[in-house]
């Protein structure tokens, strides 16, 4: 069956049982060892499988199939393989993997199935297993969804153990001793007879052996690296300016392009006058830009030097034609979402008992409406991509989270087959989901096609980056809680309304329509651990012509704020302690209880809080949230300044993320998510005026800076469960923890993001 059809089939059936018709033959883990083509090796390197190469000098090179965008995968994934290999950590490096289906991301697609985490149904297990199986064949390489360790935990351990067994077999053959007697420690093989040699000595012989049919993985007690904090492998390059990000590509003969796109999202280009631009120094060409992969139409100026291109594009006089977004301002969006909630029940992702009846029979009900705005990603490395079309072949240098999709996008724009395109991925200067889209790669390829024979680096200004993002969708959510005469919760009813990301993103990436429920719309609302006596949790998808995309923690980013705020409202309205109220709803969830208690204990919940340095009163707020498999509780200590500024002084963050690979990496990611979440909670807001984004640079879209960054304390709970996601789960509970603290401090409940104290 043609690939397009198969892909449509699978992507169109996420969450549906039709995935069941696909067959299978072996476990996905074993199928992810060998690449279709042998790994490229240089000099005296030998590839032992698709994940590891060993040089004669014993340098171990681990293939990195995930993009390093700050989350530390070049350290943590290497640790996973190195531990099973018993490699010398000091002699280990990483290299970006080629594009191959063994590197396809299975975990994110499986996690995208709309099942509750507590579900133990056969359907969930079978659908998950089959989805993994099919994504191995037709999925994509992807870094996102906090999935890297979860996705590669077993394959990379298997690869390390398999390579180790081959080295042992080669040593046993050379030394004439039983393989069972060969020991491996820190990159050195040895035998009781006194024979000893480093790994590199056996690399070539080992690589010639067949892959072992089966290997035994270590028990946790045998781990030497996993669970022990390691320094980041990318430290050195990032301290002396030598780290190469996508924007640092410098192929010989490089030209630069600067672009301007229609200010109204999705608008078109009716024409342009380039006479003035073309007369400027260094300018080579001015071209119209198409709308592939979700782009808004635009114009590019190509010049010898970057500043020349930037000046030239400002001198182009374009005539824009407004697109469908021009009819929409922020107020229209929120009105539309509310209208939908007035008239529609939404699709129920979770139902327990008869929530409607329970509400009708309640002694008392509480209602509230929440909202969250569109958000931009604003990664520090502005959107850029470098492409060369020469002799019918394409070369791409890009900061991307999806190299395979990037290759297809570039190939399409260059008018050549994907097999003729190579993609170079260096360090990413932040991703946060923005680099899951390939719009800019298609655009840069289109520009390079106009300059065939010379590489062109297309750099978006920060203004273009802010105003032509794929935004976190705006959302409105309504809650109703039923209480009995004793103030106990009897019913939980929640419907939210907003755009659905997945169908749009799939359509942009693959050019295919997709329908059906989108878990990301309701994640964070329906998939939480609380044991509601009766509940209905639903989402109404509203289609709007505003480009939306994946933003760090996706649906959780706003649903956690809505849900954890309203939980607090109910506790407050019934005079209950927010901690005790939550614990009572988690009787069958000991892991969640433990995380909540740890955060509360560490923060000193229930004890007096010291005032702020300026004497202002400080209050604590609490939130609990589960996302990407990990459980996080946060306590924020918050005050309000004399100018009504919200100030967060301290955040205690407790996590259960299963097995911890690099403890310091866990701390880094939680600190990162807290600060990213705080920037969004206090400053994050993209507003629209007749389809135009009104925020263009960091003066109009603030972010937390050194002076207003809270003290962050991370508590990691021990666990023997497999590793869960960590790049995102620290973010969702931050905003509600701050809002809950503010409600206790001021008596005012803030139900809209970003959080702003009304004038006193």
């Amino acid at each position: 069956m043609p690939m397009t059809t198969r892909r449509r089939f699978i992507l169109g059936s996420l969450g549906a049982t039709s995935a069941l018709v696909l067959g299978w033959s072996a476990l996905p883990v074993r199928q992810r060892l060998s690449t279709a083509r042998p790994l490229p090796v240089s000099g005296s390197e030998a590839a032992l499988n698709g994940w590891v190469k060993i040089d004669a000098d014993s340098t171990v090179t681990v293939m990195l199939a995930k993009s390093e965008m700050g989350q530390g995968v070049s350290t943590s994934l290497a640790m996973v393989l190195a531990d099973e290999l018993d490699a010398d950590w000091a002699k280990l490096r990483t290299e970006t993997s080629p594009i191959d289906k063994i590197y396809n991301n299975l975990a994110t697609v499986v996690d995208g199935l709309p099942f509750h985490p507590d579900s133990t149904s056969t359907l969930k297990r079978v659908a998950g297993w089959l989805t993994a199986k099919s994504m191995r064949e037709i999925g994509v390489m992807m870094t996102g969804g906090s999935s890297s360790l979860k996705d590669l935990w077993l394959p990379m351990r298997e690869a390390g153990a398999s390579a180790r067994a081959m080295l042992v077999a080669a040593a046993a053959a050379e030394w004439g001793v039983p393989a069972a007697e060969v020991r491996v420690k820190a990159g050195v093989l040895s035998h009781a007879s006194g024979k000893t040699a480093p790994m590199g000595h056996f690399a070539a012989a080992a690589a010639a052996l067949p892959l072992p049919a089966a290997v035994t993985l270590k028990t946790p007690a045998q781990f030497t690296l996993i669970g022990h904090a390691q320094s980041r492998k990318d430290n050195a390059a990032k301290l002396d300016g030598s780290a190469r990000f996508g924007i640092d590509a410098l192929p010989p003969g490089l030209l630069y392009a600067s672009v301007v796109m229609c200010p109204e999202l999705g608008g078109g280009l009716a024409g342009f006058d380039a006479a003035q631009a073309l007369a400027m120094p260094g300018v080579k060409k001015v071209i119209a830009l198409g709308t592939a992969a979700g782009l808004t139409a635009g114009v590019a100026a190509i010049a010898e030097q970057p500043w020349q291109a930037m000046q030239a594009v400002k001198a182009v006089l374009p005539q824009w034609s407004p697109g469908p977004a021009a009819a929409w301002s922020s107020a229209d969006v929120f009105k539309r979402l509310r209208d939908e909630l007035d008239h529609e029940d939404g699709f129920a992702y979770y139902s327990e008992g008869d929530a409607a009846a329970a509400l009708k029979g309640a002694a008392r009900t509480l209602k509230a409406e929440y909202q969250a705005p569109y958000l931009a990603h604003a990664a520090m490395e502005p959107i850029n991509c470098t492409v060369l079309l020469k002799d019918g072949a394409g070369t791409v240098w890009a900061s991307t989270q999806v190299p395979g999709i990037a290759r297809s996008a570039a190939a399409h724009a260059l008018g050549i087959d994907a097999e003729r395109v190579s993609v170079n991925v260096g360090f990413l200067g932040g991703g946060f989901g923005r680099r899951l889209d390939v719009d800019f790669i298609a655009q840069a390829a289109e520009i390079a096609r106009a300059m065939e024979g010379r590489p062109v680096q297309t750099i978006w200004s920060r203004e273009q980056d802010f105003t032509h993002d794929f935004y976190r969708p705006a959302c409105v959510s309504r809650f109703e809680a039923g209480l009995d005469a004793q103030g106990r919760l009897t019913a939980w009813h929640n419907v939210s309304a907003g755009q659905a990301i997945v169908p749009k993103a799939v359509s942009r990436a693959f050019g295919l329509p997709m329908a059906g429920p989108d878990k990301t719309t309701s994640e964070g609302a329906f998939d939480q651990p609380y044991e509601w006596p009766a509940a209905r949790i639903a989402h109404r998808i509203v289609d709007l012509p505003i480009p939306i995309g994946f933003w760090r923690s996706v649906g959780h980013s706003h649903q956690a704020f809505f849900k954890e705020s309203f939980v607090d409202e109910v506790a407050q309205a019934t005079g209950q302690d927010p901690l005790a109220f939550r614990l009572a709803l988690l009787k069958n969830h000991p892991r969640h209880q433990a995380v909540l208690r740890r955060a509360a204990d560490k923060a000193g919940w229930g004890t007096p809080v010291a005032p702020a340095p300026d004497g202002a009163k400080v209050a604590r707020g609490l939130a609990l949230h589960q996302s990407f498999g990990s459980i996080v509780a946060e306590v924020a200590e918050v005050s309000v300044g004399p100018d009504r500024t919200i100030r967060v002084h301290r955040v205690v963050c407790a996590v259960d993320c299963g097995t911890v690979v690099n403890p310091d990496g866990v701390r880094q990611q939680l600190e990162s998510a807290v600060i990213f979440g705080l920037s969004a909670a206090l400053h994050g807001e993209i507003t629209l005026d007749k389809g135009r984004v009104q925020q263009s640079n960091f003066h109009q879209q603030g972010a937390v800076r050194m002076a207003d960054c809270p003290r962050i304390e991370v508590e990691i709970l021990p666990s023997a469960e497999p590793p869960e996601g960590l790049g995102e789960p620290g973010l969702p509970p931050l905003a509600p923890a701050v809002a809950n603290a503010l409600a206790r401090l001021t008596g005012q409940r803030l139900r809209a993001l970003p959080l702003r104290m009304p004038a006193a």
Partner: protein
Amino acid sequence: MSLWGEAPTPTLPTDQTTERPEPRTSPAAPGTEMSTLKINGQTREVHAAPDTPLLWVLRGELQMTGTKFGCGMALCGACTVHLDGQPVRSCVTPLAAVGTQEVTTIEGVRGASIDALRQAWAAINVVQCGYCQSGQLMSACALLDKTPKPTDADIDAAMSGNLCRCGTYPRIREAIHQASTN
């Protein structure tokens, strides 16, 4: 094979795609004059127009990519370099304003301050994506050069112009304190 369906319809007739007529205009046109820069202890000749921001001279003509583009408006600090030891945002510093001042970038910065900072940065695992870190280090280095034992308030004042979206601030603060005690 393509997974993209039909090729996009061009939004404009191809005659709207415009190319600069050859031969090029006068060789004496703006943008081709030469000036001399002192960078990292070396003297370099550059041809950029005098209004070109130092950032784009570094990243473009000189192919020194350690200094980063972040915002173009001196709002984020990613492009921080030193001019005669003072931290400046190279994205808003025209070439003409550099004159005879010594330019120091992340590739060329030397001395006890940066050594101590790099050591602390690595020991504390400050970096995440790393894109802002050239600018962070250049700001921190200028701070330590001037104030060897900075207080938290000194750090707030010197470092709040450097944006980090990964959120490395707490570790930067810790690393500056650590470096200042070495």
